[in-house]
């Protein structure tokens, strides 16, 4: 593609920061989902002014653009359509300022989630600091991606999702204008545009700097593993703990198939005969932690917990968490492909919905592992399969559809942390009617009246009909 648009990008960003070779185009035509689109060109801006240059060029040439962090998204949110201009933020990865006393930092959107916590960790000599949202992909996902998806993670049960940890954003809109929304101050004048941008899946503009809130490390942490004969008992423990007035840092569950896969993979000493395990973490000051630990263990035992394992060292704690966070790597040993789902249900419906999920996959002759944020009711059914098997993809998608419908029917929502992207766009009417979706489209138009920012995601047509792109026939959703 040699055209005026490309020539202009090369001139303004430098030839090394603009790629349109076959390999680059192929690499950036998808994210971590199964959905493949078509990138027209890939840009690597190094500054806000580079992003302004790219967006002005897109605006003048009527080219759609798709901003992308590390490409770890699972819903096709960063999959470009219609030869869109892909804007990778990976070179905007600096920590600009850190305010240790007020616990804030301005960082580039390409900063990796875990790198941010590592960078600030030792700056507070009394407690230590970290960035609270901790998606399982935190080693490789970016802060900009976290902002786009309003990402969660196990510790968001007590600490809240990304929106609660973002104070301000610098955003470039599709006309090339630069704005700071939100602020280090508590009540900036006007509407909470910051809150609207977080979770907007790159459809409002390009975020070029983020002011994050940092969280002090807890002085005391207790990590425990409970095992049960079935998931229902584990889920009952979760509800009982919350009803008793405690919000642990994390309440994570794995079912039997998952426990076995993970144990084979990391050798964390998990009870492979258990129907479910619950990983519980409590943190804070000493007396509170001891008090909560005692009560939670009592509640777990009253709800059928067979054994309690306490992590007695930081190594043991890390091992238990490694089991949880690498669950997705472990499944490759069962089948070569997997499809990871993400829905939320009210906690009290967890046992029923899980039973229904088992029934759905059995019905379709598939295999499912469950590893999920039980405290939030955030399910992550992981369907494993071998895509060489004829007709299996259709069954995988059918299972996905039924799982989403079951979750919404139980009073839940389509997505807890992965976002809507392309994957769930056409499920939006399960939760929202045309008027509801029109309101969301109105919010988007207020930021991007031109429909150039990541078009055709999140909102099903006709709510997104102002968008500058359509879905190609070849796109596999």
């Amino acid at each position, binding site marked *: 593609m040699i055209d005026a648009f490309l020539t202009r990008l090369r001139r303004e960003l430098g030839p090394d920061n603009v790629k349109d070779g076959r390999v680059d185009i192929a690499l950036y035509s998808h994210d971590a989902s199964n959905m493949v689109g078509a990138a027209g060109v890939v840009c690597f801006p190094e500054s806000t002014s580079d992003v302004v240059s790219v967006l002005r060029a897109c605006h003048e040439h009527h080219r759609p653009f798709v901003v992308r962090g590390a490409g770890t998204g699972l819903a096709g949110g960063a999959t470009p359509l219609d030869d869109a201009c892909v804007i990778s933020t990976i070179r905007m990865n600096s920590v600009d300022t850190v305010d240790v*006393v*007020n616990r804030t930092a301005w960082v580039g959107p390409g900063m990796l989630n875990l790198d941010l916590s590592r960078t600030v960790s030792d700056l507070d000599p009394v407690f230590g600091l970290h960035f609270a949202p901790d998606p399982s992909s935190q080693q490789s996902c970016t802060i900009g991606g976290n902002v786009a998806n309003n990402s969660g993670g196990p510790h968001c049960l007590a600490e*809240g*999702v990304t*929106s*609660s940890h973002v104070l301000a954003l610098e955003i470039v*809109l599709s006309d090339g204008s630069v*704005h700071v*929304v939100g602020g*280090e*101050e*508590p*009540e900036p*004048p*006007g*509407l*909470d*545009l*910051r*809150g*609207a941008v*977080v*979770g907007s899946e790159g*459809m409002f503009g390009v975020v070029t700097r983020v002011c994050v809130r940092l969280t*002090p490390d*807890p*002085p005391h942490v207790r990590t425990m593993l409970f095992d049960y004969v079935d998931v229902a008992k584990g889920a009952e423990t979760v*509800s009982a703990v*919350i009803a008793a*007035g*405690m*919000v642990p840092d994390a309440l994570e569950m794995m079912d039997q198939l998952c426990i076995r896969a993970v144990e084979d993979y990391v050798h964390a000493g998990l009870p492979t005969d258990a129907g479910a395990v619950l990983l519980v973490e409590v943190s*804070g*000051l*000493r*007396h509170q932690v001891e008090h909560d630990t005692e009560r939670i263990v009592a509640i777990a035992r009253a709800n059928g917990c067979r054994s309690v394992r306490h992590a007695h060292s930081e190594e043991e704690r890390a091992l238990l968490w490694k089991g949880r966070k690498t669950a997705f790597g472990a499944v490759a040993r069962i089948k070569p492909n997997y499809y990871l789902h993400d829905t*939320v*249900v*009210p*906690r*009290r419906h967890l046992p029923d919905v899980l039973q229904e999920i088992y029934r759905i996959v059995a019905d379709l002759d598939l295999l499912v592992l469950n590893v999920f944020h039980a405290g939030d*009711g955030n399910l992550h059914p992981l369907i494993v399969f071998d895509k060489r098997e004829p007709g299996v993809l259709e069954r995988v998608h059918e299972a996905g559809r039924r799982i989403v419908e079951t979750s919404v029917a139980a009073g*839940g*929502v*389509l*997505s*807890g942390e*992965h*976002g809507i992207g392309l994957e769930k766009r056409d499920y*939006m009417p399960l*939760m929202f009617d045309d*008027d*509801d979706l029109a309101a*969301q489209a*109105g*919010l988007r*138009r*207020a*930021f991007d*009246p031109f429909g150039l920012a990541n078009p055709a995601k999140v909102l099903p047509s006709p709510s997104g009909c102002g968008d500058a792109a359509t879905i190609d026939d070849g796109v596999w959703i």
Partner: protein
Amino acid sequence: MTDVPDHLVSLSERLRDAAAARETTAVIGLGTRPLLENESTTDVARHFVSAPSGVLDFQPDEMIVRCGAGTPLDELRAVLRSAGQDVNIGGSGTIGGALARGWSDVHRLGRGPIRDVLLETLLVDHRGTTIRVGGPTVKNVTGFDLARVLVGSLGTLGVLGEVTVRTRPLPLESRWSVIDGVDRRRLDEVRRHLYRPTSLLWDGGRLWIHLDGHPQDIDEQLQRWGARSDSPPALAPHRWSLPPDDALEVVGEEGDVVEVGVGLVHRRRPAPSRRVTAPEVHRRLETEFDPHRLLNPQVKRFSER
């Protein structure tokens, strides 16, 4: 259109009728949070409506509560407290009024801002149409986060009809204490060593500390600073929003109390009027959600401030 629940029918009909006649409507609560001078116009609405009142569903093990936006906070708190919970919204008046105003209370430092409380709402728009915004679970990224924009929007984008908010468990103990003779250096030292206080209020000399938690932890945290129990100070009516360090610098006028680490200064004199950032985005939002300016005409639009 979202099925209109019975308790929103009348509100929805009144807004629809007013819209058909192109007449303006203002929503009123209990009048506890009046507009500031620089937020108001001289216009008076033709009609006045209120959101319905009453708790509709409270599930302690889900830590959420759904209620009419006209529910008085005192009434809501009484229901929540019976199950050992509370909602992170201060003051009296209605829950809808508190959300539309968007002012966090003095515990923001530890408990977070009011904007994080709203999970889902049924919004009645300028045409009287009911719109579902957000979702009923604490964790939810289904669609754009319009709920955040509604908190603090002063009713310019629609009328909050019904709201679902997250609750929080009451701590084992909540305690206010005060330390006297705290200068900037001492203030920084105390702050550095306190683990997640829920509030720190400073008037330039005294530091009030609010802690939630286990009583023994609270004792241990306060011990080394010679703190004594005290009630929090009375707060002046005006709110000056500044970056947290700047807020500490301005403290000095009679009656000033600053929320340390937050940046809010409670003052006797009004804060100067300020322009919004991204005024074009504000203007387009206001036009999208209320093109004929039928809602709350007494509120000056953000894009025009």
